[in-house]
């Protein structure tokens, strides 16, 4: 059982609060991603699990063992750093072998395991080289190999892809996913990139300003965000937000009325709708809402249609065949079951 649990973990620095009362569990063999903008405390959480930082209050458990006071070397976790942090004076082989050497694993066993991991990552030809002689992608693989060779109970990754260029990032992302399926190690992954979080994770924990916003499967995070922040942070292009009003069970928007089931209140709301949930109708009904085309951005598979509607900018996803001149009036309709309502002051989701 390699469950990781954080119970009431808080990290305070001299002046600032980096992590606020965090309760979080990474289940056995789960791939959980901490997602949030820079400075939200996600790396601090990772360091606390690794033992590189101690929480101000709260306990950390790996399995059933309380590791809060344990130094990193006794926790049996391994970590991939954003900077790779390869030992510059050691060869690739020595870099990967270092953790095994420290554990006094027999030489032949070290040799076998290093070569095995190197082969799996396609770096067996580089074993004699120094990190300085490797490309960014190769260094990344060596860093992964160094973390994997030990078969740790918990695998920690701190923004491992952010230093790679776009193509390599996509490839390595797929590779990390495959490695997780293969090794089935409990994994805590930190990133600010919502695509990485969506594609890799079993569950995502979204953080902001040191506070946990929501934990859920990628689909839950995407379809049922807990608040406006999560809704806006996940998805590209981001969710559209329009000010509206609830009266007698219906949401009133400029030129549009949405009858939603079970709205137990009335008053001002913030209506959130994802770009793909906006229907565009060039020859739509004349009684609906109309947006004025601001720009059309062809992406290839589809197109982003940016509209000005009642003073706000709204982005919709249309077919790649969509053509419209700036200034043209386009009818818009929302998929009713996809509309989310947020409290305009607290940002919390109300439906």
């Amino acid at each position, binding site marked *: 059982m390699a469950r990781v649990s954080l119970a009431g973990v808080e990290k305070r620095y001299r002046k600032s609060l980096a992590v606020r009362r965090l309760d979080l569990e990474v289940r056995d063999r789960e791939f959980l991603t901490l997602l949030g903008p820079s400075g939200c405390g996600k790396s601090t959480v990772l360091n606390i699990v*690794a033992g*590189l930082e101690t929480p101000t209050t709260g306990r950390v458990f790996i399995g059933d063992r309380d590791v809060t006071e344990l130094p990193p070397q006794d926790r049996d976790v391994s970590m991939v750093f954003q900077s790779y942090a390869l*030992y510059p004076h050691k060869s690739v082989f020595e870099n990967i072998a*270092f953790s095994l050497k*420290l554990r006094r694993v027999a030489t032949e066993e070290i040799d076998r395991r290093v070569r095995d991991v190197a082969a799996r990552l396609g770096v067996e030809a580089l074993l004699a080289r120094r990190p300085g002689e490797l490309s960014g992608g190769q260094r990344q693989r060596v860093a992964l190999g160094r973390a994997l060779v030990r078969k740790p109970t918990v695998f920690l990754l701190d923004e491992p892809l952010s230093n790679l260029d776009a193509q390599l990032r996509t490839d390595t992302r797929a590779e990390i996913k495959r490695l997780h399926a293969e090794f089935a190690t409990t994994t805590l992954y930190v990133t600010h990139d919502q695509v990485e979080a969506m594609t890799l994770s079993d569950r995502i924990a979204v953080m902001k300003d040191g506070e946990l916003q929501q934990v859920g499967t990628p689909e839950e995070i995407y379809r049922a965000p807990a608040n406006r922040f999560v809704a806006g942070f996940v998805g590209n292009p981001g969710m559209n937000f329009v000010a509206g009003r609830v009266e007698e069970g219906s949401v009133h928007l400029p030129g549009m009325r949405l009858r939603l089931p079970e709205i137990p209140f009335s008053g001002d709301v913030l209506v959130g709708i994802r770009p793909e949930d906006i229907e565009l109708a060039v020859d739509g009904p004349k009684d609906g809402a109309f947006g004025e085309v601001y720009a059309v951005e062809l992406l290839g598979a589809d197109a982003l249609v940016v509209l000005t509607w009642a003073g706000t900018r709204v982005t919709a996803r249309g077919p790649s065949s969509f053509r419209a001149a700036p200034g043209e009036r386009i009818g818009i309709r929302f998929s009713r079951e996809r509309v989310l309502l947020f409290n305009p002051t607290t940002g919390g989701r109300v439906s």
Partner: protein
Amino acid sequence: MTFRRLGWTAALLAALGFLLAPPAWQLITSLKPQEELGSLPPLLPEQPTLAQYRSVFEGRPFGRYVVNSAIVATLTMTLAIAFGAPAAYALARLPLRGSGFLLFGFLVVAMFPPIAIVSPLYLGIRAVGLRDTWWALVAADTTFALPLTIWILSTFFREIPRDLIRAARVDGATVGQAFFFVALPAAAPGIAAAAILAFVFAWNEFLFALIFTSSPAAQTVPVGIALFPGLNEMPWGEIAAASLMASAPVLLLILVFQRRIVQGLTAGAVKE
């Protein structure tokens, strides 16, 4: 443009001449036969001779001075690195209260004029019975070489990326192992530089060596050379020859380690 270049070249040549003229003069002096020493011209000896080098060793234990110097300098260097490296690492990289204040303190100690403490040091060394031994010089030299070493090495350790140490800790290293297996090798150029400086400092040190020694048992090369002049004669040729020989090991050391000092060993550790 070309004028500017010319100006630079002239300035550089002047600086080079300023730096190289004294040793060049020493070299010329050391190669002249005794008769030509006092006369100019000729600037260059008509028949260069190694006689002065030979006579350095005649009638005085110059070899013994060299051995003493080598031992004192090596011991000082070893102590300075053995204690300086862990101390510098602790000050640079471990969470330590008042490390800035401590570093400042070391700097003050290193800047202290030796002449100001030579008397109390002499009394102390006499009291513990170390007068006229290597250890007297090693102890005195280390008090100055160690702060310097700590100061230099702490800047080198501070340049080692924190992630490198953290990676070692997660890999299973204790604080000590992370220092030995990761920080120390990564700071190798700094260690080499600091070691050479400590060695050269002890090798050249004159004041302590003069005061704390009284016989060839512990007298070092600078003290030995200072004892060359006799009552009526000033053996310039021998002094020049001895000085050049004394400089040779230092020069050699720097030449050998230059690459290591300059070479940035941390290249490629992290993505810039």
